[in-house]
């Protein structure tokens, strides 16, 4: 356990070093969040009745998305891991007395969290002082405030468990670029990053919940905004847990199989 904690610590502290990058990122996120909200305002003006959630709730959703972007961004992968698989460096990692899957899982958590820590507070602080329907509001009620962090953590773990499958696919294909971009574009749409899921047609929504992607950022953000009733929220969190267990099991199977097949050439 201690070893994984130190892996986490090293990566986390390394991630905290990039302050200038963080400021540039924060500036980008203000602009991105602001423009997204303005776009939805234009849609709101052309048909307020068709708007599936309150405008305030949507603004909160968008700002949460920006604040926790580093936790849920679908396009980010640690190239070191891909390189170690394709380049053969993984042989060293296999010699270490620790578990490959857990180690990579923890490293991924650390990189993403270090970025969120630097970025989420400034983004939320500014979003909190924006005038009424455009800023981020407080959680809908006490229950939402209580459930949000738990669901946020679950969603985060689901996303990493899924991206582990993409990393592990490199053992089989040796050229992960193609799968990576395919997975990213599918995830980006189905997790509600492009357009929040409530805005999609009714018939499509059950399909999205049958996939693991809706259990990533969508569930915690909708809980926070109070879009989900309490029973639905608990149901969705159960779904998150289910997906997490399934994806962890799949990753486990894959890593065991990959370790059997791995051949490292030369010395």
């Amino acid at each position: 356990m201690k070893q994984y904690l130190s892996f986490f610590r090293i990566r986390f502290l390394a991630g905290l070093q990039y302050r200038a990058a963080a400021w540039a990122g924060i500036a980008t996120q203000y602009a991105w969040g602001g423009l997204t909200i303005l776009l939805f305002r234009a849609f709101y003006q052309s048909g307020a009745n068709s708007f599936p959630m309150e405008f305030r709730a949507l603004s909160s959703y968008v700002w949460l998305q920006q604040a926790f972007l580093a936790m849920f961004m679908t396009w980010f992968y640690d190239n070191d891991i891909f390189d170690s698989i394709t380049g053969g460096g993984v042989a060293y990692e296999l010699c270490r007395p620790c578990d490959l899957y857990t180690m990579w899982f923890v490293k991924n958590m650390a990189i993403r969290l270090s970025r969120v820590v630097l970025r989420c507070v400034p983004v939320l602080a500014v979003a909190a002082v924006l005038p009424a329907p455009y800023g981020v509001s407080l959680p809908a009620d006490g229950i939402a405030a209580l459930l949000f962090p738990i669901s946020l953590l679950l969603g985060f773990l689901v996303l990493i468990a899924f991206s582990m499958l993409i990393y592990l696919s490199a053992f089989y294909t040796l050229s992960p670029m193609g799968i990576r971009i395919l997975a990213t574009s599918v995830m980006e749409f189905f997790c509600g990053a492009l357009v929040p899921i409530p805005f999609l047609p009714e018939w499509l929504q059950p399909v999205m919940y049958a996939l693991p992607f809706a259990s990533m950022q969508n569930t915690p953000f909708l809980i926070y905004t109070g879009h989900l009733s309490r029973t639905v929220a608990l149901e969705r969190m159960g779904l998150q847990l289910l997906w997490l267990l399934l994806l962890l099991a799949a990753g486990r199977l894959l890593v065991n199989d990959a370790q059997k097949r791995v051949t490292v050439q030369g010395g």
Partner: protein
Amino acid sequence: MKLYVRYLSMLLKSQLQYRASFFMTAAGQFLVSFTAFLGVYFLFSRFHSVEGFSFPEVLICFSVMLTSFSVTECFARGFDAFPKLIRSGELDRILVRPKGVIFQVLTSQMEFTRIGRFLQAVLMLGYAVPNCGVVWTADKILTVVLMIIGGIAVFTSLFVLYAGISFFTIEGLEFMNIFTDGSREFGKYPLSVYGETVLKFFTYVIPTALVQYYPLLYLVGRSDDRRLMLLPLIGFVFFLPCYGFFRYGLRSYRSAGS
């Protein structure tokens, strides 16, 4: 020019060596912009119009931006990857060769997988052109062509500006994404939907609106002013300050040595 074609075919051949990876990436590029299209489609199936623009009208705007962006990303990719040239010291090698810097940066890298994005843009244009209710006279066709060419000019200028900034900082570059990726992402819609301030910014500071919103007004018949048709050409003027900044950066460039 002959040399450029030689480079072009060389890079194309080398990328086609990894055929499976090439087509997978191109398919991925297609899928990325296809999901973006789905987002727009589903929003319009709910709201029908935005700021008075209909779905086919927005699609014209979207496909013009996507065409310009994918062409720029394919051929001016070298500027997008310019920070890497600096960091790896490759730029020093470029500077001692007897050819222009711009030429060499352009030929250092090309991304032909952007054909996926391009294809998506062409498909959308193919759908929007007969469905948007515009009577396609010669000057309307010319407007679309000018919008695309102007778009390429604006995106290329932004890439050159980006490369120029990377002479001074490599870490803080992410904010440039607001202008490059931001123009592509938010330029899907006519920039007036974001309100007046944003429109002014994208008119006077970064001239993205000049290649999409204003000529679009003429195209769909919201305005009869023919001068709007020629506004995309200002995109070429925007290249001058960007190139000037790049030159300035290049002059103050000091290599880190071997």
